[in-house]
């Protein structure tokens, strides 16, 4: 580092000094900066967050949930939901990670002084505001009425019951807890959220009973301090509660308090979501319920299996040079025929699978590989989309076999060549024809650190522009598929002055119709457009659809 100032991007080392499991997938990490001077300097405002970094894996922004008055100990309540937070969930006291912050503006609590304070949160959104509530509670005389509203989808997500309980007992403080929809069935191991009452303050006038249909529940605060009572489906079960329905607290008034993000209030933030939310994980990949391999007692085992393919993807690993030697030090390569290690029956922590499924025998074999693998990762166009041989899916394969071979009865082939994920669940996919060494090593390095591989889903254009390459479509009129193709190759072809032909397959959110319409309007032949989608990735549904559509327009027989 040159210059006097420390880079604002550089994390400090932090140590996990405590960990608690809040619910099945929510946990709290208690962190402490290891540098004493920095620990003493560090302060934060309620509502701020830290970046937590796991070197080699990635970083995530996580709210600070602890008391700002004790800033040497920083609690972060996290849901294990993505590739970084799943690894964070594995940390134990004594483990180290990187921390930088605090960031964000914090809540404008000073401005709220002398006024009512209403805190509304949903789900894990309660984490950033518990610090704000603690702040207000410690300075209770500076605020008028304190209202805390927390909603969750399932009662299992209702964490920090004892805190809500304690707050509910404070003077002039109201706590309301709500959950959406029905809880998980009995026996799921989660406690139903009961409509526990607020403890009425002395002199408080009993109000209406909780209505079964308002979805609003009161903090459990029976004398034993435990949740109790039936679920809301039993109307009238609640004890007398405060007469303060949710309605008078209008969304506009409420948003004024926490909505200080600098963004204008948007109508669509308040309206129910009209469109579904797209998960990043593609539908063919398993949503990773299982954890990546974490093996303490022995080396992780790696297998490389081959199905219908050309072996080119295996070369990505075989040509890794020194990195292959380094890899062999770290893992036991139990099966890798191209490298001369053959034990197809071996159990493996990570199985890279090249090739498509194109024979009945391969269906059985891939199921066996699945059963023997903790992580199964198809690599290459064949494994992820069927490969060039998936062109048979567009034709009448049995008729071709009959036409070509004198004794077709000797040929045992499926009428289609399909991706591995069509036959067994897979844990991640590495596309490409072929995959490259950098891509495979990055995936392995991530897995060996206990994290799922980064799912790259940008378009080729993004990588192309980062490399400073001139767009061959705009500057030369080449029919480049970069705008609809997923990155991973490093925009290889445009860098050599030629158009991308889509060998990594469709990117996330591709707009093939617009691109092909543009090419067609500028004089590209319909048949030529159809052919663009007939290379290695014709098995990918988006490209297959484009091929079929443009074949029809050109009067082209899709079975040709």
């Amino acid at each position, binding site marked *: *580092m*040159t*210059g006097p*100032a*420390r*880079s*604002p*991007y*550089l*994390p400090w*080392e932090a140590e996990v000094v405590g960990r608690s499991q809040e619910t099945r997938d929510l946990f709290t990490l208690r962190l402490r900066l*290891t540098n004493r001077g920095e620990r003493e300097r560090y302060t934060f405002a309620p509502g701020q967050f830290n970046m937590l970094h*796991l*070197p*080699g*894996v*990635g*970083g995530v922004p996580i709210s600070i949930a602890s008391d700002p008055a004790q800033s040497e100990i920083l609690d972060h309540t996290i849901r294990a*939901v*993505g590739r970084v937070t799943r690894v964070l969930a594995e940390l134990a006291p004594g*483990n180290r*990670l*990187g921390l930088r912050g605090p960031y964000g503006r914090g809540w404008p609590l000073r401005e709220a002084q002398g006024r009512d304070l209403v805190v509304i949160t949903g789900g894990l959104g309660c984490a950033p505001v518990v610090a704000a509530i603690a702040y207000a509670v410690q300075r209770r005389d500076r605020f008028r009425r304190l209202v805390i509203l927390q909603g969750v989808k399932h009662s299992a997500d209702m964490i920090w019951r004892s805190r809500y309980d304690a707050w509910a007992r404070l003077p002039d403080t109201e706590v309301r807890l709500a959950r959406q929809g029905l809880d998980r069935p009995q026996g799921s191991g989660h406690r139903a959220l009961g409509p526990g009452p607020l403890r009425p303050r002395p002199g408080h006038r009993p109000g209406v009973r909780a209505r079964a249909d308002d979805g609003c529940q009161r903090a459990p605060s029976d004398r034993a301090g435990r949740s109790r009572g039936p679920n809301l489906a039993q109307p009238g079960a609640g004890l007398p509660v405060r007469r303060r329905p949710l309605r008078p607290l209008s969304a506009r008034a409420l948003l004024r308090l926490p909505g200080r993000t600098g963004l*204008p209030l*948007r*109508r*669509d933030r308040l309206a129910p979501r009209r*469109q579904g*939310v*797209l*998960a*990043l994980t593609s539908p063919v990949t398993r949503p990773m319920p299982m954890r990546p391999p974490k093996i303490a007692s022995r080396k992780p085992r790696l297998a490389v299996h081959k199905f219908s393919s050309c072996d080119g993807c295996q070369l990505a690993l075989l040509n890794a040079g020194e990195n292959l030697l*380094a890899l062999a*030090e770290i893992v036991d390569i139990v099966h890798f025929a191209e490298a001369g290690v053959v034990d197809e029956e071996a159990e493996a922590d990570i199985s890279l699978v090249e090739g498509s499924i194109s024979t009945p025998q391969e269906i059985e074999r891939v199921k066996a590989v699945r059963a023997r693998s903790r992580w199964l990762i198809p690599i290459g166009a064949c494994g992820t989309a069927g490969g060039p041989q998936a062109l048979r899916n567009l034709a009448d394969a049995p008729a071709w076999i009959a036409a070509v071979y004198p004794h077709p009865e000797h040929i045992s082939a499926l009428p289609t060549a399909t991706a591995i994920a069509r036959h067994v669940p897979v844990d991640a996919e590495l596309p490409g024809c072929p995959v490259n060494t950098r891509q495979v*090593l990055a995936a*392995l*390095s991530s897995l060996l*650190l206990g994290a799922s591989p*980064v799912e790259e*889903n*940008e*378009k080729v*254009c*993004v990588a192309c*522009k*980062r*490399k400073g390459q*001139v767009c*061959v479509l*705009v*500057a*030369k009129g080449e029919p480049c598929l970069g705008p*609809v193709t997923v990155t991973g190759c490093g925009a290889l072809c445009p860098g050599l002055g030629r158009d991308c032909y889509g060998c990594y397959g469709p990117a*996330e*959110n*591709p*707009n093939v119709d*617009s*691109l092909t319409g*543009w090419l067609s309007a500028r004089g590209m032949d319909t048949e030529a457009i159809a052919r663009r989608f007939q290379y290695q990735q014709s098995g990918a549904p988006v490209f297959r659809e484009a091929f079929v559509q443009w074949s029809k327009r050109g009067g082209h027989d899709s079975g040709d």
Partner: protein
Amino acid sequence: MPSAAGHGAIVMKARPRFLPREALQSLFEALAAGGYRCVGPQVRDGAIVYADLSDASALPVGFGARQAPGEYRLEERGDQRCFAWANGPQALKPLLFRPQEPLWQARRGADGRIQFESAAAPRERRAVISVRACDLAALALHDKHFLHKERDPWYAARRADLLLIAVDCSHPADTCFCVSTGDGPAVEGETDLALTELDRGFLVRAYTAEGAALRDALPLREATPEELDEAEAQIAQARQSQTRRMPDRNLRDALFANLDHPRWAEVAERCLSCGNCVAVCPTCFCHTERDLGALDGTASTHLRRWDSCFSAEHSYLHGRLLRPDTRTRYRQWLTHKLGGWHDQYGRSGCVGCGRCITWCPVGIDLTEEAAAVCAPSGEGPVP
């Protein structure tokens, strides 16, 4: 610090002097003598790009560029002009805000402790030749973004070492609209040295001490009144040649009042969500980060790289995409650039360079989209 432009005061009033065309190489020699690595425009792969350049003959002499939505073509002009073209895909942005660069390395010892070490900030005196007014405006915006309270060490180091040699834009492209955003085509400061290219040579104006030192090393003579008139007429012509315009310099309220406008869905039918507009935009600054780890887990490099609000990852939060479709992504881009920037940086994020129009693979024109979204209901886009 060779250059004070952008974050220092303009130290002197510019008074043009004249550099004969055949003496242009003296500028490169003066830069080399000053220890500058020189970056400038040149023809490569069918476009005018900025790269290392040490010789005047490597400039795009006699080249022009025809630009239209989704199309860029070089043209031979048949004259000796070096700067008779509007901007290509990039200029300053990749030089200061690198498309990809390491921020820090981490090493994990056998005891599990982690050491973080910042990537060193580069120190190299660089001079960029032929910076246009739109890019100077974009640079001022990036200065605001990267040199705020917590200065970005890498941007700051490169910025401090940068010498700017601007050129008045004499030949705007059909996609340009800097007149309507108030950012061009004439250079009016915020640079060390400025050139106006005329048929027989260049008017040279210095705005900073560094620029003046460079100017004084050149074989200049007094500019004639005719030459000053020619320069003025040329800029007037450049202004008049622009037909595209942004509907208004501040569209903030109009955009945010039209978040449900049907035009967003309509443009999403055409938009490829490919991020080309963001990548070529001289003001877009979003980045994402990646960790490149060694196989044995003992070391890793933390990279920053350009991101775009058209990528899925940009709106990934807690297992979900906040902007799952192109409609919401395009809307995010336009409302932030033309709306939200007013709150953040006191002006629009658009400097009228037109790159996003030219380099959009399907020719989407943001001025047209902004006009359509902001037009009173029932009216079409402003022609």
